[in-house]
């Protein structure tokens, strides 16, 4: 484990309590308006990220983690109805107009996508995409923006930066593309980076390189980072805190060391047991039974109850997110930190 994870501060949810809070998400909910009315996608999501801290938003596909990120960025779909409060650097941004929200993008928040091949423009040069951002957000001249773009590419470990600026995304390898994406996201000096599965599409050895780069950037620029992933093992390596989502709900929240090693919510435990771990010598895995209920078909009460081995009648009522052991969990029958 990294050194910064070991000391357990008084405020157990934050390993860096002295640092100011960059992002605070309070009771965020999101529904999509369609012909039949409102379809809830995300409910009651709350967490915060301090300067220099990485928080993981973990869950399987369809749990609402990516749309939560787009709601924070202010780029959620047009038919989204968003509730709750989002505060960035002490300023409530959830009540701002879409125009003012857009002004925060790039300058205060940077976004890194899973698939850099499709997240970068196919027919505009790398340089054009970077300088557009720099000129618009920082008011740089074309020459200044080009120089800054070259420096940024150099900083993220791209050789021959000047040539790459003239090139296009299809000419780069997967790892290089993601480096360009990172350079673009940090280009205007944001205080928060949201990374949506930034290494999922990459090979293991490249994944390690990109994670290292993200960690370097975080240290160097003291960035707050929201790291969206489905892989709990990456969480343990990379993030101080973890928020586990299931069917639009936060089901567990705590220090990532605790969430990964001693989860109290049966779903989080199930996620860990389902993955074949290195050298554990198991001949059978412990899957979570059934499948994730699709959006719009969530059960009443605890949404995990139909798949949970510990569920009983009480689980027909919705549990609150409460402290159990070392972490917060939304569960009537939490596991008490079984290692």
């Amino acid at each position, binding site marked *: 484990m990294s050194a910064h994870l070991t000391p357990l501060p008084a405020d157990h949810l934050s390993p860096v309590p002295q640092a100011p809070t960059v992002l605070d998400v309070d009771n965020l909910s999101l529904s999509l308006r369609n012909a039949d009315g409102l379809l809830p996608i995300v409910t009651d999501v709350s967490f915060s990220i301090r300067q220099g801290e990485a928080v993981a938003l973990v869950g399987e596909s369809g749990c609402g983690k990516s749309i939560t990120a787009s709601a924070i960025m202010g780029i959620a779909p047009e038919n989204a109805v968003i509730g709750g409060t989002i505060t960035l650097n002490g300023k409530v941004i959830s009540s701002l107009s879409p125009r003012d929200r857009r002004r925060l993008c*790039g*300058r205060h928040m940077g976004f890194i996508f899973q698939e850099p091949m499709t997240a*970068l*423009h196919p027919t505009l040069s790398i340089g054009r995409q970077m300088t557009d951002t720099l000129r618009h957000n920082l008011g740089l001249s074309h020459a200044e923006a080009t120089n800054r773009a070259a420096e940024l590419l150099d900083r993220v470990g791209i050789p021959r930066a000047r040539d790459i600026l003239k090139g*296009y995304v299809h000419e780069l390898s997967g790892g290089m593309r993601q480096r360009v994406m990172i350079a673009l996201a940090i280009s205007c000096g944001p205080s928060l980076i949201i990374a949506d599965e930034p290494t999922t599409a990459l090979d293991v050895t490249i994944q390690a390189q990109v994670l290292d780069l993200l960690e370097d950037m975080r240290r160097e620029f003291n960035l707050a980072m929201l790291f969206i992933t489905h892989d709990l093992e990456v969480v343990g390596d990379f993030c101080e805190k973890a928020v586990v989502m299931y069917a639009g709900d936060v089901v567990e929240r705590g220090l990532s060391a605790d969430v990964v090693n001693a989860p109290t919510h049966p779903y989080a435990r199930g996620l860990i047991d389902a993955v074949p771990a290195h050298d554990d010598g198991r001949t059978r895995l412990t899957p979570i039974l059934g499948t994730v209920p699709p959006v719009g078909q969530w059960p009443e009460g605890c949404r995990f109850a139909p798949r949970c081995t510990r569920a009983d009648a009480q689980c027909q009522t919705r549990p609150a997110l409460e402290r159990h052991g070392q972490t917060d969990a939304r569960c009537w029958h939490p596991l008490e930190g079984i290692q």
Partner: protein
Amino acid sequence: MLRYLGKRFLLILPTIFVPLILVFLLLRLSPGDPAGMMLGDQATAEQIAALRTQLGLDQPIWVQFLLWLKGIVTLDLGNSIFFREPVMQIIPRYAGVTIMLTLVALTLAVVIGITMGLLSAMNRNKPIDRGVVTTAVLGISLPEFWFALLLIFVFAVTLRWFPVAGYNPPSAGLVAFASTIFLPALALGVRQSALMTRMMRSSMLDVLNEPYITTARAQGLPESKVIGQYAMRTAAMPVVTVAGLSAGYMLGGAVAIEIIFALPGLGRMLVEAVGRRDYPLVEGGVLTISLVLAVLNLAIDLIYAILDPRIRYQ
């Protein structure tokens, strides 16, 4: 880039020559004899035979074809049987009108198509979108000649904004030129613009869902730039592709439009020349149209290569 264009050029050669061969054969296989037409009912068989020899029509078809190919290379397309002057002198008098008509029609179609498609996509499922989509369906369903007659009736006969027929070349001044070319070009371009509207709409809606558009937004770029530059650049590509096909379609459609608006263009010339069995002039006309189409398509390939860097490397 040069290699790409060279390759495109080689691919275009058949589009010039295949129609030529077809026209050459069809003319000679169809009934009617130019020598007989020229000499009239009173001519004797000897006179006709003599003229046939003079025109080279007594030679086997393949010899006639080779002679004609030789003519193309030496820029001598022979003499018009009817006008009795070199085809190379007649064609330029008519080609200018058709080329202008097609270019203006194509420009109108692209501009209308992209604008309406964009308007429609940006207002998806709102009244304005439904209006545009309905109009586009109507536009595709209407034949050009009908639309041409409608335009003449409304804008020329009733409102008297434009002349009913006739043609002023660009050398007569821009206003004079525009007043005679606008209605015919609009009539010729309307169906293609309707097609392009629909294409632009669906392509824009697709592009707006692309992750790189989300990236542009997440980078804080204003919506006008996101749409106008990032989305437009990729969304317009299918429209450019269609423009190549449209150009060919319009060159064909020009015949009807030229007749309705009494424009002295290649289309009208060809119809008359076919009626007179004026082989050299028909072949010269078809060659010209094929060449215009080839040049237009090369120009579109060039635009495509500029818009999409990936093309240049293939």
